[in-house]
């Protein structure tokens, strides 16, 4: 199985290409999401991520398999953190490798978009004077 799925306490940002590289791959697209210092003009100090781990892993596996079926990919990686993360720290890494670049770009975008929609992970934002669970605005 050419799928690498993990919930981790810290993301190794160098793992993307290391895992995705393959003799038949010419293109590797990697997306890394990190903590930004602000949300809607409010200063963010840190984020806290909580996961329903068994289900999150299962959903990520499903998303990776869907991508494998939809595009001609050699490998797919999806790592997400849990715990407290400061500004500039990576929180998610997804990527795909393919013979030509079109497929890995489209697949990589699909991986992060679908992860954000379906994977049971929740983010709490810590501002100066308050903390709130993030509710996505559809």
């Amino acid at each position, binding site marked *: 199985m050419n799928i690498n799925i993990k919930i981790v306490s810290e993301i190794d940002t160098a793992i993307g290409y290391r895992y995705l590289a393959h003799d038949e791959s010419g293109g590797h697209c990697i997306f890394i*999401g990190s903590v930004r210092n602000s949300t809607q003009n409010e200063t963010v100090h840190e984020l806290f*991520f*909580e*996961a*329903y781990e*068994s*289900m*999150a892993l*299962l959903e990520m596996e499903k998303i990776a398999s869907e991508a494998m079926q939809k595009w001609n990919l050699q490998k797919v990686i999806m790592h*997400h953190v849990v715990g407290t993360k400061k500004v500039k720290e990576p*929180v*998610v890494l997804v990527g795909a490798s393919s013979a030509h670049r079109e497929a890995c770009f489209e697949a990589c975008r699909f991986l*992060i978009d679908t*992860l*954000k*929609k*379906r*994977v*049971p*992970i*929740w*983010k*709490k934002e810590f501002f100066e004077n308050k903390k709130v*669970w*993030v*509710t*996505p605005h559809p």
Partner: protein
Amino acid sequence: MKILFFGIAKDIVGKSIVEFQNEILFPIKVGTLKADLINKYPALGDISSLAIALNSRYATDDMLVSQQDEIAIIPPVSGG
């Protein structure tokens, strides 16, 4: 049976695992279980969308839950 709560739903019920004894009659449909929970914790009804996971998979309202199943309450996800 135990029900798992996450994110804002966990804050509303005050803990991440709530044990229900005779309050719920099994087997029960997912939709009915959701309605019962909102009845018990009205603030859950204020969440824009509330999904239920049955053994780590998203469940539809008409699925049947038995006492051995693992149930989790899934408020809108916000990973990434």
